[in-house]
C-alpha cells in the first residue's frame, strides 16, 4: 500500500479498539475520555463527511466495541445495517450504496485488514447475488440480510472449526509458545484443555498491550500451567518450546501474516531453531495485500507508554504490527482446513476471480 495521506502521527483506530478490548489504559485514551467528559455532545467523527442521519461508521464502531466480536463481523453487520436503512429500489442502486459504504469504512480505518477483507467479501457476495437477475428486489434484499446475519454465526463457528482442526497438533506434554491475545488461539487452547490434554503455555509479555498478563489470566481459569516471558526472552526459552501458536490480524496473498509487533521476531527465532510456527486465522482474514517488506504496509501506529518521561528529541518506533513472510510459517489453521502458506493465494484467486 502506498503511503497516502496518513499523517505520521495518526493513531490506528484498529489497535486502539483492541487496546480498549483488553482494557488497557493509555494516556491517549485518558485524554479522549477527558475530552468526552468535558464536551459530552461533540461527535468524534465530525470530520468524516457522511451527512446521512444513518452513519455507517457509527454503526461499525458500535459493533466493534463488543469485545467478543471479530472485526470483519462488525463490518458486515454495519453493511447489513446499511441495507436495512437503504431506500434503494433496484439491485444496482443497492450495490452502489454498499460500495460507497464499504469505501467509507475502509478509508476511515486504513490499517485494519479484517475490516477491508470483510467489506470486500461482502461486496463480492453482493455482486454475485445481484447477478441473479430474476429475483425480485425484496427477496434479494432479504437474502443479503440473511447472509450478513449468518456471517456472524459463521465467524463463531469458524473459531470452533479451527480449534477442532488444531487438536491433532497438540500432544500430551508439549510446550506451546503464544504471542499476542488472539481469540482464536484462546479457543484452541480452551478446546485442548477440555479434551484433557496436558500441555503448558509460555506467553510473551506482549508489551505495550500487556497481552501476556491477560492471557495468563484466562489460562489460569482453565487450569493450564502458564509461564510469562519477557519479549526479549523468547530466544532464550525457545529450546524448551515445541511449537509456536499465533493468531493473525490479516493473512496476505503471499501466505504471510500481519500480526502484532513481535510475531516476525518470534517466527525468525523459531525457524532458525526448527520449531514449527502455527497460525490460527479465519478465512475472512485473507486479504489481497502483498507486502514486500515491513514498510510496505500502511503504517499503523499506537501510543506506547514507558512509564517515565522521554526527552522530546527521542523518536519512538510506534508501529503496532509487523509482517511475517511465508517461509517462516509452517501451517495455517483456518476454517477451510489446515493449509500451507502457498495455498492462501489459491483461495484468494478463487474467491476474487
Amino acid at each position, binding site marked *: *500500500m*502506498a*503511503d497516502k495521506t496518513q499523517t505520521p502521527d495518526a493513531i490506528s483506530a484498529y489497535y486502539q479498539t483492541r487496546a480498549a478490548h483488553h482494557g488497557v489504559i493509555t494516556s491517549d485514551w485518558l485524554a479522549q475520555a477527558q475530552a468526552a467528559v468535558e464536551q459530552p455532545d461533540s461527535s468524534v467523527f465530525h470530520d468524516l463527511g457522511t451527512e446521512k442521519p444513518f452513519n455507517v461508521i457509527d454503526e461499525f464502531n458500535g459493533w466493534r466495541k463488543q469485545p467478543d466480536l471479530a472485526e470483519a463481523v462488525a463490518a458486515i453487520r454495519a453493511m447489513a445495517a446499511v441495507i436495512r436503512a437503504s431506500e434503494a429500489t433496484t439491485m444496482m442502486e443497492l450495490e452502489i450504496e454498499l460500495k460507497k459504504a464499504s469505501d467509507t469504512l475502509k478509508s476511515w480505518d486504513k490499517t485494519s485488514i479484517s475490516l477491508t477483507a470483510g467489506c470486500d467479501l461482502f461486496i463480492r457476495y453482493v455482486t454475485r447475488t445481484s447477478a441473479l437477475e430474476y429475483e425480485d428486489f425484496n427477496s434479494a434484499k432479504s437474502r443479503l440480510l440473511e447472509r450478513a446475519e449468518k456471517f456472524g454465526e459463521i465467524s463463531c463457528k469458524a473459531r470452533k472449526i479451527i480449534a477442532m482442526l488444531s487438536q491433532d497438533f497438540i500432544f500430551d506434554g508439549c510446550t506451546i509458545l503464544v504471542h499476542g491475545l488472539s481469540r482464536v488461539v484462546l479457543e484452541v487452547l480452551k478446546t485442548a484443555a477440555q479434551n484433557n490434554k496436558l500441555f503448558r503455555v509460555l506467553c510473551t509479555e506482549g508489551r505495550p498491550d500487556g497481552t501476556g498478563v491477560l492471557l495468563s489470566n484466562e489460562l489460569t481459569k482453565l487450569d493450564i500451567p502458564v509461564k510469562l516471558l519477557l519479549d526479549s526472552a523468547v530466544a532464550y526459552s525457545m529450546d524448551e518450546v515445541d511449537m509456536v501458536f499465533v493468531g493473525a490480524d490479516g493473512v496476505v*496473498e*503471499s*501466505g504471510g501474516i500481519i500480526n502484532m509487533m513481535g510475531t516476525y521476531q518470534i517466527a525468525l527465532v523459531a525457524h532458525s531453531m526448527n520449531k514449527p510456527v502455527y497460525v490460527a486465522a479465519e478465512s475472512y482474514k485473507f486479504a*489481497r495485500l*502483498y507486502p*514486500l*517488506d515491513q514498510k*510496505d504496509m500502511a503504517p499503523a501506529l499506537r501510543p506506547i507508554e514507558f512509564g517515565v518521561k522521554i526527552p522530546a528529541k527521542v523518536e519512538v518506533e510506534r508501529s503496532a504490527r509487523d509482517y511475517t513472510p*511465508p517461509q517462516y510459517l509452517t501451517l495455517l489453521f483456518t476454517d477451510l482446513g489446515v493449509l500451507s502458506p*502457498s495455498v492462501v*493465494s*489459491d483461495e484468494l*484467486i*478463487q474467491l*476474487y*476471480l
Partner: protein
Amino acid sequence: MDPPSRFLHSVPTRFDSPDRLRFHHFSFPQLPLPRHDSSSAAASAVSPSSFSYSTAATSPTASPGRVSRGSFSRFSFASSLPGVGMDSMAAATSSSVPASGLTTVSVVNMPPPPGLSEKASGVGVQKSSKPLKEKTTKAERRALQDAQRAASKAEGGKAPLVSSGSVASANVKAAKPAKPSSQENDVAVAAAGPSEKDRKKDAPHPRMQYDDESRVVKAKRRAVVKQTEAKNRVELFRHLPQYEHGTQLPDLETKFSLLDPMYPAVYKVGLQYLSGDISGGNARCIAMLQAFQEVVKDYSTPPEKTLNRDLTAKISSYVSFLIECRPLSVSMGNAIRFVKNRIAQLPITLFESEAKAALQSDIQRFISEKIVAADKAIVRHAVTKIRYGDVLLTYGSPSAVEMVLLQAHELRKKFRVLVVDSLPKLEGQLLLRRLIKRGIDCTYTHINAISYITHEVTKVFLGASSVLSNGTVYSRVGTACVAMVASAFRVPVLVCCEAYKFHEREQLDSICSNELGDPNVISKVHGRGDINYLDGLTNNANLQFLNLMYDATPSDYISMIITDYGMVPPTSVPVIVREYQKEHLLV
C-alpha cells in the same frame, strides 16, 4: 497433458474419428499440378512441396495414379516413398493413407483430367468426384511400386518438401486402415512426395530434439526455409537447432515466388523474425495474430471441405514456416493453441462469412484482452509497489516493465532506474532511450557490474518470456543472474508477465529447452572493430561459440509475479494456469 504439438499442425491427435472425415483437413490438392496451371492450385493451400515435387517428378509410372477403389488398395500406396516402402506397407496394413507417389508422378505427365483437378482439393470429397482409375493387376502394381521407389530414391532429397505439416499429418497417423473409399481419397490427396510417409509419421514436434540425425533429415525435407546446420556446435546443446545465420534471408527471398501457398502476411512476419526486426514475446505474438487475421479475412473454403479443418491445417502450415524462421516463443504457442481452439469450436452451421467474422473478432479480442488490457492491469498493480525514493533495477527491455516505469513517472512518483544490459543484443539501450526521452532518471550499466551496484537498489523489476508451473521464470538470458544477485542482497524481485504466457510445463534448468542464437555475434565486440581476436576461429575444432537466448530462473529468487490476475507468489502459477484454461473452455 496434450501439449505443444497441438499447435504444430500435424495434428496426429485428431485421428479419432474412424471414417473418411479424417482426411478432410488435408485440404491440399495434393496433386502436383504445375504452377501455371490453375485455379485449384491458387485456391487451396497447395503444399509447396507438391510443386517442387512435380517439377522434379519423372514418370516412370504412368497413370495408375488412382488406386482402384476397394480392391486392393493398401499396397498401391507404398509407392515412391524411398526407403519407406516397407513402412508404408506396414503402415498401410495398420492404417495410414499414404497416397502419394502414385498420383503425383502420374499426374505430372498427363494433363490432369478435369476430374482430377477438382479432386485436388477435394479430399473430403468422398465419392463425389470419381477419380479416373485404371484397373491394374496386382503384379503390375507391384512392378509400378518398385519402379517408383527406385525413381524417387534417385531424386532423393532433391527438393525440400515443404510440407505443410498438414499433409503429413493427414497421412500420418491415419491410423486405421481406411475403407476403400477413403483410400481412394487418400490417393488423391497424396501428392507430396517421397517423404510423405516420413511426414506422416514424424509430425515435427514443436520442441523437437535436434540431435537425432534421422529426424533432422526428415525435418529438413519438410522445411520451407532451407537452413544449413552450423558445423561447430556445443555438445550439450545438440538437441537444439542451430543454423548458419545469414544464409536464410536471401534464400527465402528467392523462394518467395515459389511459395505460393504461403500467405504474404505470414511470410512477412517470418522474415521479420528471421532478421530480428520483431523481438519480444508480445510483439511477436501480436504480429503473428495480426497476420492470421488477414489470413482469415482472405480465406475462402475450398469446395468440398469444411472450414474448421481446412483452416486449421492452413494455420498449422504457416506455423511450421514460422518455426523454421525462428523457434516459437511460449506466448506464440499459447496464442496458436487459442486460435486453433476457436476454429475447432466454430459451429458447423455457420456461414463462411459469419465464421470468418467470428474468428477475426475472437483474435482481436484475444489481443485486446489478453495482451493490451492485461498490460494495463499489470501496470496498475505494479505502480502501487513503487515508493518514493525507490531505485529500480531492470534488465534488458521488457515491454511490461517499460509501461510500469512510464506510468509511475506519469503519476509523479520519485524514483530512478538502473538499466542493466548485456551483449550481444544490447536491448537495454532501447529501453534506456525511451525512458530518458520521458525524463526519467536513469543509470546504465552492463551485467558484469551487478554485484557492484545492487547494494543501492531497492527493487528489481523483470520481464518474462514465460512463467512455468513450478514457478520458474523463463526469460532473456542474464535474468537468472540478476535475480540471484538481487536475492542475495535481499532485494525483492518482481516479475511482470501477462497470464497468457503462463505454461503448464515445468523446467528445472536452462538446458533442456532453449534457443540458440547466432554464434558469430559473440566473437566480436559491438562497436569495437579493433577487438577481433576471435576472428577466423569460428571453425576451430577446439573452440565452440554458444549464444543462448533464454534462461530459467528458479522460483526461490522471485518475490512476486505481477499478472493481470493480480500479484501472486510464484507458487500460485499452476492455479492461474488452471483458472486460465477454465476460462477458455467456457468462452
